[in-house]
């Protein structure tokens, strides 16, 4: 396995099961329903962080308007399962449509940005995020599509064959199940020809093309997958809140999700989940500080980034096996680092 972990092989195998078991029993141990709700929110944001991780962490495409896909997912679910258009699709087909629409919107925003990288890509995606927000606020006239600033309400809760999900605990398990599926998909994608192509583009786009990677197709796949994960999260949010408002999808949410990815460790799927857990729960933990809550949150993030700039769980552990090789004998030149090229 290319991804080494700084603990024994045995523990490494057991760790995922331990974490999964912990996630399953966590809401049962929670002191009150408020905490269960917070746990559900962690799952939701972990979904978003995993999606953004595909775009930013795997493919190296800096997207700072990512919340747009979260919003699109939420509103599409609301359109399909609320009295607004009188459609009441069952949960599973509705979510499949949500995923499809999100994927297509990912491709549509991805297509014009294919030639852009880094800062320039960030600016265009920022613009896309703002456009989406402004559309959500203003598309109540001339025909009422989004409900404008008042949003959409009375959205159907998820139901499976007549069984209606209710209460934070049940939502939590629904979210956790989705998170598990998305996590598995992320891992499979990372270690596949598609994931290798993404990483190659992140490392050196020109060389990736020369090695036979169709960079256009590959980047659009990254945008589509990232948007699909966000679409899932959006649909779940709409069905949980039973309402959606444009203000759920403001710019600072994009930054929050990006912070989860960077803090947790870009490219490390477990890291970004941890990042989501920290960024969602820190403000809750600091609640006693009242007005100084966000100050403490910001300070904490700064401290973390100063001491672990590569994120809590970096994509590659700076492990002994990755230390530079000794030069070969017979007067070989010293190994050069990437910075020399």
């Amino acid at each position, binding site marked *: 396995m290319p991804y080494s972990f700084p603990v024994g092989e045995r523990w490494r195998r057991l760790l995922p099961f331990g974490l999964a078991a912990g996630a399953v029993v966590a809401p049962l141990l929670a002191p009150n329903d408020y905490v269960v709700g917070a746990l559900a929110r962690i799952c939701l944001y972990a979904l978003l962080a995993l999606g953004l991780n595909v775009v930013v962490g795997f493919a190296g495409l800096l997207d700072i308007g990512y919340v747009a896909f979260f919003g699109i997912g939420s509103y599409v679910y609301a359109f399909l399962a609320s009295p607004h258009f009188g459609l009441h699709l069952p949960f599973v087909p509705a979510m499949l449509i949500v995923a499809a629409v999100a994927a297509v919107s990912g491709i549509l925003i991805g297509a014009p940005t294919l030639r852009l990288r880094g800062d320039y890509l960030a600016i265009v995606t920022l613009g896309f995020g703002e456009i989406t927000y402004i559309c959500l606020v203003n598309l109540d006239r001339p025909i009422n599509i989004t409900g404008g600033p008042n949003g959409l309400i009375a959205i159907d809760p998820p139901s499976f064959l007549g069984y209606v999900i209710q209460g934070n605990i049940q939502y939590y398990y629904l979210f956790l199940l989705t998170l598990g599926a998305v996590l598995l998909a992320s891992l499979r994608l990372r270690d*596949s020809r598609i994931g*290798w192509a993404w990483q190659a583009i992140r490392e050196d786009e020109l060389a990736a093309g020369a090695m*036979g990677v169709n960079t256009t197709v590959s980047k659009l796949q990254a945008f589509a997958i990232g948007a699909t994960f966000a679409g899932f999260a959006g649909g779940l949010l709409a069905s949980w809140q039973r309402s959606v408002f444009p203000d759920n999808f403001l710019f600072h949410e994009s930054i929050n999700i990006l912070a989860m990815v960077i803090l947790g460790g870009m490219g490390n799927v477990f890291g970004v989940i941890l990042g989501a857990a920290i960024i969602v729960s820190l403000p809750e933990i600091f609640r006693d500080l009242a007005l100084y809550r966000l100050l403490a949150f910001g300070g904490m993030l700064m401290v973390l980034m100063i001491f672990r700039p590569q994120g809590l769980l970096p994509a590659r552990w700076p492990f002994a096996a990755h230390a*530079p*090789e000794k030069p*070969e004998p017979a007067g070989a030149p010293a190994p050069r680092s990437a910075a020399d090229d």
Partner: protein
Amino acid sequence: MALLEASGLKKSFGGLEAVQGFDFRLEEGEIVSLIGPNGSGKTTIFNLITGMFPASAGRVAFAGRDILGLKPHAITALGVARTFQNQRLFNQMTVLENVLVGHHCRSRAGLVGVTLGLPGARAEKSRVIEESKEMLALFGERLLPRADRLAQSLSYANRRRLEIARALATRPRLLLLDEPAAGMNPTESRELMADILRIRDRGVTVLLIEHDMTVVRGISDRVVALDHGVKIAEGDFATVRRDPHVVEAYLGRRAAHA
């Protein structure tokens, strides 16, 4: 039919004529070296053949097919692979993964197959991992034992070898090597020569740019010399070495007439 045929190939960057009407034929199974002083247009020719940038004029046919104007990945898919003079490995990926990227155009698994873990996608993945390990094994004990290390951590010579392994993973008929021996010590260069001959014996035609004349002499069937974007000599090593134009290009006019 020649494997690669360039005619009237031109490239100018603003006022600089980097390549001025290059005509060239490469037969299947040859090892041909492209030599010339710095700035004579050798790497530019590689970049034109591989679609890195568009030519100003001319024609390049690979196996009888026009390839100018195709995107780099499409040219690679047709069977042309290359290495880079200034090493462009995927540094934050492992040695094995670097080679796996090279298999991209020879594998098919799609988003659905991968995310659902369908049997076809799984079988293909284990196949390309096996094949990638074979590519690494071409370099004996140099790369294979380091398969799980980051490419960045490799020694200089091993990085050069990995570039070749990665290019071979695309299953090329033609391999373009841009200064493969640069920075290698004599032992490593000798090993490289043996590696290149072995690659040719696997049925890959090799065109290389090289400044190390020991390497050029040791393995080339034919040598093409360039200066200021013009072909000044062509033939076997001994002929090209004695050619007055070549001597002049490297050492100046007086040396050529001495």
